[in-house]
C-alpha cells in the first residue's frame, strides 16, 4: 500500500513537471489528499513524462534539421538527428508527429511555401525510410512566415532554413 502511494506521487509530480515545461500558462494540478501523505524524504522524481513533447526533446539529438539555401536534401548530420527521432517514435508507437518546414526570408512567398513543404517532406521521407509509419507523420509549411532568428544575415538565414518535428499530444 505505501508502495502504491509512492508510485502515484511520482506520476503526479512528473506530470506536473511536464505540464510546467510544455504549457507554462497552466498551473500544476492541485495535490490530492493522498499525495499529502508523502514522506518528506521520498525521492524527487526526475525527467519528463514518458512519451511527452518534453520527453521527446530530452531523448532526441535535436527536434530540428537544417538545410542549405534553396536545398531540401537530408545530409548525414540530419540523418543522425532524424534517426534519434525515429528511435523515440519506435518507443512510443501511439504517438504522431507534425514536421514544420521553414525557409529563410530571401525568397518569394509562394515559392517558399512550396520549398518549406518540400523540406518537411524530405524529413518525413527519411523517417519513413528508417521504419516510421507514414500515417504517423503530417507536414505543414510556413514558408518564410515564421523565422526563428530575426537578423538579415547568413547566420540567421541558416537557422531559419529548417524542419522542426513536434509531437502531437
Amino acid at each position, binding site marked *: 500500500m505505501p508502495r502504491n502511494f509512492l508510485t502515484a506521487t511520482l506520476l503526479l509530480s512528473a506530470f506536473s513537471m511536464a505540464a510546467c515545461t510544455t504549457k507554462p500558462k497552466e498551473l500544476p494540478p492541485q495535490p490530492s489528499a493522498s499525495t499529502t501523505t508523502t514522506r518528506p524524504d521520498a525521492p524527487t522524481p526526475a525527467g519528463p513524462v514518458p512519451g511527452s513533447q518534453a520527453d521527446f526533446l530530452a531523448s532526441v539529438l535535436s527536434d530540428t534539421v537544417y538545410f542549405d539555401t*534553396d536545398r*531540401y536534401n537530408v545530409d548525414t548530420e540530419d540523418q543522425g538527428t532524424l534517426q534519434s527521432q525515429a528511435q523515440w517514435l519506435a518507443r512510443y508507437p501511439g504517438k504522431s508527429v507534425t514536421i514544420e518546414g521553414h525557409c529563410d*526570408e*530571401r*525568397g*518569394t*512567398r*509562394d*515559392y517558399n*511555401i*512550396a*520549398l518549406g*513543404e*518540400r523540406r*518537411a*517532406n*524530405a524529413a518525413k*521521407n527519411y523517417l519513413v525510410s528508417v521504419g516510421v509509419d507514414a500515417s504517423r507523420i503530417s507536414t*505543414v*509549411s510556413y*514558408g518564410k*512566415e*515564421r*523565422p*526563428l532568428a*530575426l*537578423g*538579415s544575415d547568413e547566420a540567421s538565414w541558416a537557422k531559419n532554413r529548417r524542419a522542426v518535428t513536434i509531437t502531437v499530444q
Partner: protein
Amino acid sequence: MTIRKLALLLAVASFPALAFAQQAAVPASAASPQADEGGLTGSVTDESEWQDLGIAIPSFPTDRSEATAADGGTTEVLGRNLARVVYGDLKNNGLFKPVGPDALPGIAYAEVASPAFAGWRGRSAEMLVQGFVKAVADGRLTVGCYLYDVSLGTELARQGYVVKPEEWRRAAHKCADMVYSRLSGESPFFDSKIAYIAETGPKDRRRKQLAIMDSDGANHRFITNGQATALTPRYSPDYSKIVYLSYLNGAPRIYVYEIGTGRQTLVTQGKGPTFAPRWSPDGKSILYSMAISGNTDIYRVPATGGESVRLTNTPGINVGGSYSPDGSKIVFESDRSGSQQVYVMDAGGGNQRRISFFGGRSATPEWSPRGDQIAFTHMAGNFRIAVMNPQGGEMRELTDSWQDEAPTWAPNGRIIQFFRTQKNSGESSIWQVDLTGRNERKLDTPRGASDPAWGPVLP
C-alpha cells in the same frame, strides 16, 4: 448682377437630369465664354505651386448647398473634397503637376460649363478641370467633370456621373480617369481597388490580415481579424470575391471570400497544401498550386468548385501562374531547371517553355492587362521588380532595393505595385513605380503592407 443670375439659371437649366450611367451627357460650354472674372475672388495661397501649374482643379461648385450623407455633410463642402480627390489622383502618377482647390480661388456654378479662360491664362494654367456637384431627389449625387485646354480656350472632354453618397469618391476617380486618359492617351485606372495583406507585430510573430482599399488608399477595410495568417489575395475580375491563402485550420489552404455576404469557402478539398491562387480573366476558374509528397504543381479548378485539372507535371516546384489577358496562355515559375525561372504554357498546360535567361532567379511573373509585358521579381543579389516581353526579351529592371517582390499591374498596364521589405526589421510596405522606372513612391497604409493585388477598373 442680372446678367450673372441669368447665366446661372441658364446653366442650371442646361444641366440635364443624368441617368445612372458612367458617362451621361453633360452640357456644352456656353456659346460665349464669360469674360467676367467675378467668380475668381479667392487669392493664391501657395505661390510656389503656381510655378509648376499644369492643371488647375478648383473646387467643384454646387447649384444649391444641400445636406448629403457623403463626406463633408453638404454638397458645397463635398465639392471641395471631390476636387481634392481628383487633384490627389493626378498628382500621384507623376505625369502632371496639378494645383488643387486648396491653392486656387473658387469658381461660380455658372462658370463650370463656361470657364473664365482669360483669368486662367493670366495664371499660366495649361489645362483646367472644372466640375459641379448637385444633390438628386433620392439622395444620390450628380457630379459633372469638364476638361478644358486653357490656351486654346476649348473643351477637350466631359463626363457626368450619378453616384450614391457613400460612393462619392468614385465620381472623382472617374473624373481623374477622364483627364488622365484624354491627356496621356492611356487607359484609365484610378477607379479601381487593391487587396493586400496588412502586417503588424514583430518579425517572428507577425499578424497578417486581409485588407482592401481604393487605389488611392481611401475606404480602407480589414477583411480578416488576423487570428489566422492570411497571404496572397487576388480580387475576382468583378470585385465580388477575393481568393487568398489562410492558415485558418492550421495548414495553408486557399479560400474564396465573398465580399457581399462575408461567406468563405474552401476552393478544393485536396489533401495537400494549396497556395498561390489566381483568377482567370473571365473569373470562371482559379489557378492554384498544390504540393503532393513535396512536389508542387499548378492546377485549375472552376471558381464554384469541382474537378481540378493538373496543368504541370514535372519534378520540382511549379508555382504561381498568371493568365494572358485573352486567357490563352499562362506564365508561371518553376525550378525544374535547378532554380526559379519563368515559363509560359498554353492555358491547357501544353507547350511549356522557359522564357527567363537573365542570370539569378526570376519569380512571381504577372502578365500585364495589356498583354505586352510580364512583370516579375528578379533575384540577383538584391530583389528587383523587372519587366520583359512575353518572349522573354527586352528585360528591364524598374526598381533597386534590398528586397522588392510580387509585382501587380494597374488595370491600364502602365504602373506596377509591389512590396518592399526592410533588411533586419522585416517591415514591409507597398510601393508603386511606372513602366519607365520613374515616379517610384510608397503608398500610405495604416499598418505594414505586403502582397498587393490591383483589381480592374470598376464598371
